[in-house]
């Protein structure tokens, strides 16, 4: 009936329902507060409107009332804060073993790449019921990845990775918007997320001419760029051994310790001098400008694939780079 006039976005992800619940609660609370205050104002305005011979009654104030109407809202606010924070916490914490889709934003286009290989532009196909983690970066200015039906939004910044995740629960086609103003065609930087039943997703996956998995591309980049010359899989290399590095703490030359996450690996490629691993010399060339964002993503995925998935994750997640096992360097 309301084809052109919907009032509520579809709730198509596991998180959407939680956001809607809090939203409905707040709408109810606000309506109640508005109704209460407006009723009071209207009643007072009519009941105490100016009349001949009736003087206003001077009232100084009431400390008890003041404290009440400061404390009660405060407690309600704190309640809302906790509820909102809980939702946010879930939104910001991707489950282990989520399929990792790499997103590169540029003026004015979304480029997405699945771990299995397919690349998409302004379109993202995902199956129902799978956790999908988006690892995003920008080639130029700040963008923002926004899917209203999933209730997720995350700014995408140049020079670093930000992440978001969702699990779709309802097949359909949903809007993908850029929500951070990014220049002339900001409003044209839109696309769609297509949520499919798993079997149709598999069909889609095998239908497209894939160019090899992301990790496999990364592996060949790794060879092409000559990385294995130094980053050998033993301890004799001039660079650190990269097998098993990802997700582990790394001791740096200046005494700090960092966790080897995506941002760290990325930084180590584009600006190797920033963090030198303890015991090594700063001899690695700078790759800034020599590798594109997509190639960088492939390299990061490849290096990640050199580390076994964290133990305790529920089985082999379907999203693990398909070629990870094959690409393990021969010892």
């Amino acid at each position, binding site marked *: 009936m309301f084809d052109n006039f919907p009032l509520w976005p579809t709730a198509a992800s596991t998180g959407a329902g939680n956001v809607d619940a809090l939203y409905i609660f707040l709408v109810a609370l606000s309506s109640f507060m508005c109704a209460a205050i407006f009723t009071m104002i209207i009643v007072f305005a009519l009941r105490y409107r100016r009349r001949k011979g009736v003087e206003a009654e001077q009232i100084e104030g009431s400390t008890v009332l003041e404290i009440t109407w400061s404390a009660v809202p405060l407690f309600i606010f704190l309640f809302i804060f906790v509820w909102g924070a809980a939702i946010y916490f879930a939104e910001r914490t991707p489950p282990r073993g989520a399929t990792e889709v790499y997103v590169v934003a540029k003026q004015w286009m979304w480029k997405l790449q699945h771990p299995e290989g397919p690349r998409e532009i302004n379109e993202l196909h995902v199956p129902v019921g799978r956790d999908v983690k988006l690892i995003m970066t920008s080639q130029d200015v700040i963008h923002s990845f926004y899917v209203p039906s999933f209730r997720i939004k995350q700014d995408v910044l140049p020079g670093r990775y930000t992440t978001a995740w969702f699990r779709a629960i309802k097949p359909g086609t949903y809007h993908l918007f850029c929500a951070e103003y990014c220049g002339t065609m900001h409003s044209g930087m839109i696309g769609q997320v297509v949520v499919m039943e798993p079997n149709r997703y598999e069909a889609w996956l095998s239908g497209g001419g894939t160019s090899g998995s992301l990790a496999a591309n990364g592996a060949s980049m790794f060879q092409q760029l000559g990385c294995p010359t130094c980053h050998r899989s033993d301890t004799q290399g001039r660079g650190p051994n990269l097998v098993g590095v990802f997700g582990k703490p790394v001791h740096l030359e*200046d005494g700090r310790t960092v966790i080897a996450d995506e941002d760290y690996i990325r930084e180590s490629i584009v600006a190797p*001098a*920033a963090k*030198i691993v303890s015991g090594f010399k*700063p001899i690695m060339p700078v790759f800034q400008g020599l590798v594109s964002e997509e190639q960088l993503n492939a390299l990061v995925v490849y290096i990640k694939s050199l580390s076994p998935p964290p133990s305790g994750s529920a089985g082999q997640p379907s999203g693990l780079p398909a070629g990870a096992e094959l690409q393990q360097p021969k010892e």
Partner: protein
Amino acid sequence: MSDSPGAVETQKPELLHHFSSAEQQRDASTFGMWLFLATEIMFFGGMFCAYLIYRYWYYNEFAAGSRSINIWLGTINTAVLICSSLTVALGVRAAQMGKRKLLVTLLLITMVFGVAFLGIKGVEWYQKFEEHHIPGNSFNVDDIIHDYPQIHIDPQHEQIFFSLYFAMTGLHALHMVIGLGIFTFLTYKAWKGVYSPSYYTPVEVGGLYWHFVDIVWIYLFPLLYLIDRKPLR
């Protein structure tokens, strides 16, 4: 005092019509200047905040950049500013005591110090210009990288140090130039004999400003010049 809105006092030309007493007027002016200095603290504070964050992130580059600045010029400039602060303080004192010639002399000496500061600053900037350390297209820190093979220097991060160096010293120098303008005005008025022991607020307020600019430099000096001067390992 407030009963008689001061028929006597309004005869003084320097008392503006809307104040009820010279004291109220003087008080308002100094209070206003203190508030303005609070504003200035926030103004420089924004930049100091950026400085601290980047210094924490890019310590190596900041240390190396700091070493490449001429510490002698920096120290001399600090001394010059402290001397100028002394002459300002003495100048306010001369105004309080109604010594017109002394006041004019001290104000002039202050300005000489101020100009000297800017001159030395100019020399320093010129050195940086010759070394291609000015951020922009011709920015080049190969010399610094070469000088310190034992630390790892990212030219981009080095550029941030120099960006902040020029922004901070540049804005400080701009404040000095404004201060010189104020002092030119004060000197002219003092020479004309406007100030007396009962009316010297402009000198005092101008002095507050000058001292504040001095204080900013007192912080800029260690933060920019003395990050890491200790012998390298």
